[in-house]
């Protein structure tokens, strides 16, 4: 996918200026934590389960070679063809080859962040394939020519009114009202049903791959992914190498957290496990199934200090709880994965230079880490990325130099107290009457949004030392 993370601040500025969209985001930011928290309160074992899931995820990653090989063996035994792709381009080519071998024209696609990452749709469309997204949210943004704003609810940035207009413009279905959300859902159902029934290839993602039996787990509420997996004669599952779990029960244990964290439900409507193509005695299912496993730098992350990021289960809770995500929305981040998890993943999967702003889009408030079902220390990883920016001299020189000088000065108490004493005395003199400054040299970032409160008087150290001397 085309990346524009380098203009994060401009993207954010444009997002903040759109008041209608900001209102939609504010409402979602109020609502999504409420449903997640209610689900976890009801569940009661959040901390115990997240420690368990985290340990299982870490164990899987520590032994990924072993589990990936055993998954591959089982998947092949189940009749699948397993492919490996080092890069996104490789994945796209593998998928296109399969489609072309079957002379396929129509593709029905379930929601898959991996294929967003590789830009699969655009790639297949350039080869004249007719690719249709079937998850309602993905379908809406595909019709609108947009990208997902959220990893779970890709079209949550759009209002029902916008979607209504989009459908009226895009669907040649004559006069109709489309007054309610139900009407919109019904229309999409009708349009997509036809596509499902005629597609030659189905493409879906996977929420987990199970090493012990070669099944892949697919979690949806709509059932669209299941239609893609069951109706077309060829099925391609695109996912990444880090999705492996040892046992089937590990996948459903993770599911307990995934669903509650994502939508506040106790259980999604459809949780399916697929092993491979139809068997001799079967009367349905694809004749041929392919699994394409993408690395795209995940093996580098595994070998790095950011390894914990691979524990992520893609629930979106960190997005829903991030006040910065709520302020600017997912598109501002300029790539596939937004919010806290995206601000860690984007630099690691693309480049730190291009994504320089993202690790800085964090106040270290810790709300994401608090709700993360995989217990990933997101604010720490973001700070470590800022550290990498300092080390690699990517961070802006004025910040690097300024704070280096401040840290040095803080180690020279006498000099520090002398200089701060002089500076504060001056500020106090200028600001005591009004109490705050609306403009201040070197603090334009601060004063662009708020006044700078004036000091209360001389510094504490000056006052205290004077008092101390006086007493003596």
């Amino acid at each position, binding site marked *: 996918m085309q990346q524009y993370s380098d203009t994060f601040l401009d993207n954010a500025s444009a997002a903040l200026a759109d008041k209608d969209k900001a209102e939609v985001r504010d409402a979602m930011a109020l609502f999504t934590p409420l449903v997640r928290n209610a689900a976890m309160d009801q569940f009661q074992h959040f901390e115990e389960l997240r420690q368990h899931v985290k340990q299982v995820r870490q164990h899987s990653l520590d032994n990924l070679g072993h589990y990936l090989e055993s998954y591959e063996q089982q998947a092949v035994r189940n009749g699948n063809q397993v492919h490996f792709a080092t890069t996104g381009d490789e994945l796209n080519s593998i998928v296109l080859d399969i489609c072309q071998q079957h002379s396929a024209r129509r593709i029905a696609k379930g929601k898959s962040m991996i294929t967003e990452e590789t830009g699969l749709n655009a790639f297949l469309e350039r080869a004249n394939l007719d690719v249709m997204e079937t998850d309602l949210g993905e379908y809406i943004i595909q019709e609108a020519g947009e990208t997902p704003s959220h990893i779970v609810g890709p079209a949550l940035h759009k209002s029902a009114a916008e979607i209504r207009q989009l459908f009226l413009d895009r669907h040649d279905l004559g006069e109709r009202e489309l007054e309610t959300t139900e009407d919109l859902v019904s229309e999409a159902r009708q349009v997509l049903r036809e596509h499902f029934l005629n597609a030659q290839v189905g493409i879906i993602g996977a929420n987990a791959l199970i090493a012990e039996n070669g099944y892949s787990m697919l979690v949806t509420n709509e059932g669209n992914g299941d239609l893609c997996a069951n109706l077309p004669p060829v099925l391609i599952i695109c996912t990444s190498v880090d999705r492996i779990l040892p046992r089937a029960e590990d996948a459903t244990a993770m599911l307990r957290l995934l669903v509650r964290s994502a939508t506040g439900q106790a259980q999604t409507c459809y949780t399916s496990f697929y092993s491979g193509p139809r068997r001799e005695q079967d009367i349905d299912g694809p004749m041929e199934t392919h699994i394409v496993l993408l690395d795209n730098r995940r093996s580098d992350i595994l070998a790095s200090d950011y390894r914990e990021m691979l524990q992520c289960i893609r629930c979106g809770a960190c997005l829903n709880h991030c006040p910065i995500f709520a302020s600017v929305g997912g598109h501002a981040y300029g790539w596939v994965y937004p919010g806290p998890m995206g601000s860690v993943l984007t630099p690691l999967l693309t480049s730190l230079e291009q994504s320089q702003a993202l690790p800085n889009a964090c106040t270290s408030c810790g709300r994401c880490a608090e709700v993360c079902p995989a217990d990933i220390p997101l604010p720490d990883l973001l700070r470590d990325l800022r550290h990498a920016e300092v080390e690699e001299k990517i961070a802006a020189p004025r*910040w690097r130099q300024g704070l280096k000088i401040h840290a040095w000065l803080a180690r020279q108490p006498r000099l520090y107290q002398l200089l701060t004493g002089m500076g504060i005395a001056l500020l106090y003199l200028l600001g005591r009457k009004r109490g705050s400054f609306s403009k201040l040299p070197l603090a334009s970032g601060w004063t662009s949004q708020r006044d700078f409160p004036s000091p209360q008087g001389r510094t*504490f150290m000056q006052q205290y030392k004077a008092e101390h001397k006086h007493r003596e």
Partner: protein
Amino acid sequence: MESEALHTTAPGGGPAVYLFVTCLADLLRPSVAFNSIKLLEDAGCRVTVPLQQTCCGQPAYNTGDYKSIIPLARQVVAMLEPADYVVLPSGSCAGMICHHYPALLKDEWHERALQVAAKTFEITTFLSDIVKAKRPERPPIPLPPITYHDSCAGLRELGIKEQPRQLLQEFCDTQVSELQQSEVCCGFGGTFCAKMPEISGKMVQDKLHNAAATGAGILAGGDLGCLLNIAGRARREGVAIEVRHITELLCGDLDGPAIGEGE
């Protein structure tokens, strides 16, 4: 040299509490430090103010400059080692010492940092949980309706939520009118507010409006960073709410101007 390095306010018994004033209180709001001393002394502590203190190093640390901070962190650890307790009128600075110093320092210094971390407390936690401070022999301090801003580092790194509310009840006989979205960040975030001012501005605007919606006359909090941010925004928007550090309320020190207000 020794008398220059340390100063103990009141001789006598009680635990030796080292007060780490924090740079923002030192520079912009000395009353926070004076009120902290008073509260600790009233609670029977022997308060020592290490005179060579400056800043805990959060600005550079949060920006990712770990290398510059390591020598400063060692210096602060060494300075605080003789204390029975270390108390700070700030959740984020206490969190820096309790969590981030041990993570940053290695080997022998890691152990020393852990020892200091174990005896370091944010002031409301210390007063409420450790010394179980009671109101001195005087009537409760009358206050207008107040609301409270839970700063993120205090809330999530140190679990500070009930302590300031208990103290306000005990010292001032006051209950807090809770603001909506009280656990959402105010947009300060150290250098974040200057690096990404527009986003920070939206966040502090939301915080200020939620605070104003409670009808409270005072917004109190335990971290000057957040309070300067919210007070600065209140001044900018002309919202009439006094912003004060909780130590000022607990001492009844309400005569001077609130944060950002003129004399």
